[in-house]
């Protein structure tokens, strides 16, 4: 199919798909343009940091259906992406990432995930598959998600995400590119052994070569090209955003009492993973950092136990989060850290490759747990890990992780939950476990032992 025909086909399909999306969200009959205007009642610059985050995600979501924030038609070249594919190259080429895992969480937030999961299960997707992917699969079957120009996935962390893209590529008849990421190189990253250093560099070179192939693939199938100066600008935005994100994290970590109370700090950055390389992400993290600095720390007497949060949270409406919001403060959220060194604008693609292969979550359970033990602030009383039962990568390591933390004297509560599928949500049971955990850490505070 030539490019013009593909744009025409995508345009027609996305018009139908956005209407289908509105229908499953209970907005049948509302014109897409009107629905978009309703989603953006205020200008970006006037919003709080958290609301800016929501604005950015929603804006990109509608852009993928060819709608700008005024509800006007603008054709948007778009790539389906799995969560750990680097975004800077896409932005520099004018290709909007549309992240399947984030789509699932957005559908869960609007209460539209369960129906999609049931659709997927009725169409031969196994019940024990990852609920993020089942939501997306159901969405594709019901044709509520926008047809991509191309699909780009990586082999990071989860098998189902890249595997599902294979199906989506075939369904939409759009080409797919897979980034094959070597495993476990983060374990070797600080080694001084020559063999280990060589192995890491081989991994970086392997991914660097694939990123170059990815650029050629995007150009071949979309006609978009990469301008070096644009990429350098994107890299500067990423580095600036990284600085503000980490500075904001430091405010929370270094103050005895949280600058930001409650659980609102959770997965702040995970929600924005698709936006690295945009100008707006700089604004979001800068505003967040400034807001934290301006927020005076509460008196010691007012403090609640500071807890480090691992992995994600339920994105569907659950009583758990408001319950925790009144009882704990988050000192650190595992998915909020920019773990990487600033990208090198003079060698951008290699530095993106290096960041990609040295992702700490794509390492052994032992390595990532040892880091957490080392880095956990002394004033943090314990850890709550929220792991979806269908997640082989995180849930599958939780027994080892629990044993290691307990040996290190760090209390941990692992909640076997789900981020997207609310059908097994059992708040009374989880509440009992949370209460018992909080009572225990109150009785034996870790911070006082130090």
């Amino acid at each position, binding site marked *: 199919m030539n490019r013009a025909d593909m744009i025409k086909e995508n345009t027609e399909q996305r018009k139908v798909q956005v209407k289908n999306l509105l229908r499953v969200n209970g907005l049948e009959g509302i014109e897409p343009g009107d629905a978009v205007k309703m989603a953006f009642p205020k200008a970006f610059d006037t919003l709080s940091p958290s609301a800016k985050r929501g604005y950015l995600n929603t804006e990109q979501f509608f852009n993928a259906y060819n709608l700008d924030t005024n509800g006007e038609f603008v054709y948007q070249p778009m790539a389906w992406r799995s969560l750990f594919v680097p975004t800077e190259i896409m932005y520099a080429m004018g290709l909007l990432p549309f992240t399947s895992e984030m789509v699932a969480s957005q559908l869960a937030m609007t209460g539209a995930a369960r129906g999609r999961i049931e659709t997927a299960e009725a*169409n*031969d*997707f*196994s019940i*024990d*598959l*990852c609920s993020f*992917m089942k939501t997306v*699969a159901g969405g594709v*079957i019901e044709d509520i998600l926008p047809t991509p120009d191309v699909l780009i*996935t990586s*082999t990071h*962390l*989860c*098998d*189902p995400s*890249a*595997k*599902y893209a*294979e*199906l989506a590529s*075939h*369904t939409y008849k759009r080409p*797919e*590119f*897979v980034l*094959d990421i*070597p*495993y*476990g190189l983060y374990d070797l990253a600080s080694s001084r052994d020559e*063999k280990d250093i060589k*192995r890491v560099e*081989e991994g970086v070179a*392997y991914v660097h*070569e*694939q990123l170059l*192939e990815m650029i050629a693939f995007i150009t071949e199938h979309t006609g978009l090209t990469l301008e070096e100066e644009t990429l350098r600008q994107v890299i500067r935005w990423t580095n600036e955003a990284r600085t503000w994100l980490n500075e904001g994290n430091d405010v929370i970590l270094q103050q005895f009492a949280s600058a930001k109370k409650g659980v609102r700090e959770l997965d702040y950055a995970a929600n924005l993973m698709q936006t690295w390389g945009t100008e707006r992400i700089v604004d979001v993290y800068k505003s967040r950092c400034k807001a934290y600095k301006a927020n005076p720390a509460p008196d010691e007497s007012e403090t609640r136990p500071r807890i480090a949060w691992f992995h994600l949270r339920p994105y569907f409406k659950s009583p758990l989060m408001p319950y925790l919001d009144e009882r704990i403060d988050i000192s650190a959220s595992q998915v909020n850290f920019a773990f990487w060194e600033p990208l090198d604008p003079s060698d951008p693609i290699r530095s993106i490759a290096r960041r990609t292969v040295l992702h700490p979550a794509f390492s*052994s*359970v*032992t390595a990532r747990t040892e880091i957490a033990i080392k880095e956990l602030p002394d004033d943090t009383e314990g850890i709550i890990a929220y792991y979806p*039962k*269908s*997640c*082989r*990568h995180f*849930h*599958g*390591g*939780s*027994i*080892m992780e629990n044993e290691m933390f307990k040996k290190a004297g760090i209390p941990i509560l692992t909640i076997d939950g789900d981020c997207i599928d609310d059908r097994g949500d059992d708040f009374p049971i989880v509440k009992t476990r949370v209460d018992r955990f909080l009572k225990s850490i109150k009785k034996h505070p870790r911070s006082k032992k130090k």
Partner: protein
Amino acid sequence: MKKIGWFCTYTPVEILHAAGALPVGLKSDSGAEHEDVVLGDSMCSYVRSCMGGALTGSYDALSGVVIAHSCECMRRLADGWLYRQDEIKPKMLHLLDVPKIVTQSSIAFFAGGLRRMKEDIEAHVGPISEEALRASMATCNKTRALCRAIDALRKKEAPAVTGREVEKLIAASWEMPRETFNARLETFIADKEGQTGDKNAPRIMIIGGPGNGSLIKTIEAAGALSVVEHMCTGLRAYTGEAAFNEDPFLELADLYLTQTPCPRMLGKAAQDAISEIESLIKEYRVDGVLYYSMQFCSNMQMQWARLKNDSPIDVPMKVLDGDISTEINECEIQSFIKRLKKRRKRNR
């Protein structure tokens, strides 16, 4: 002779063989699933069984193991093994990273991983000369050629070879010196030449992972014939044809990455996997496909959804969700075969 265990068919056993070790494939019934106290409930039963086996001494006769990083469950097996290394007798653990795509650069990258595997094996077992490696590659290629000869017999209208026989052969090969196995295959082929079997039995293709000890037995007891097993314990163990390369590691990398693909593979290799299934159905004149989907294996579960929703396969297919135990729902298999028998009769 030192014994080195392996778990996944993406492990080039030639390297173990060339070091003078006996490669031992860890079968699905070799471990102890219920003894796994490390990995948790969301792992596939094969991996949990191997972890449990390691903790309870099932693999004490081994000097080490090679774990191929082929999927997320295998990744966790390596984690668990390392975590409890003090309680596990085989001291060597080599984690072999296996790419999920097939390109020139992935083959070169995998070859680098194989060179590291060779160094690790040399440190634990003994030196591997290039001559020894070439000789081992020739021995293993002979196995592949003999297996192709058996496959040719199975493609015939009235095959004399049953699925049970092939299952037993492959199970024996897992812990048998390769030269002995080749001799056994030659004898088997010679015995079968000129023989014929039941030409009326519905011909079944099984797709799966390590499978289930009762599966083929149940299929054949119900009057069907398993003619091709697209499984770790079937085609995937011995297919592929070596294309000579002056660098033996590049040759091995190419051979293993381009073999009959496991559902773990992605990109073009995953599309090829579907095409290959479609071709195999024609080549073996398959009447029906039984997809034995391992619980908690998302790669298989996704491939099944792809086959069921979006492939032009025109023979009946049935999915069985299960694990490595020998428990199986016989009625489900019997009723599927009954349906195939009726369909065969109607189409005759």
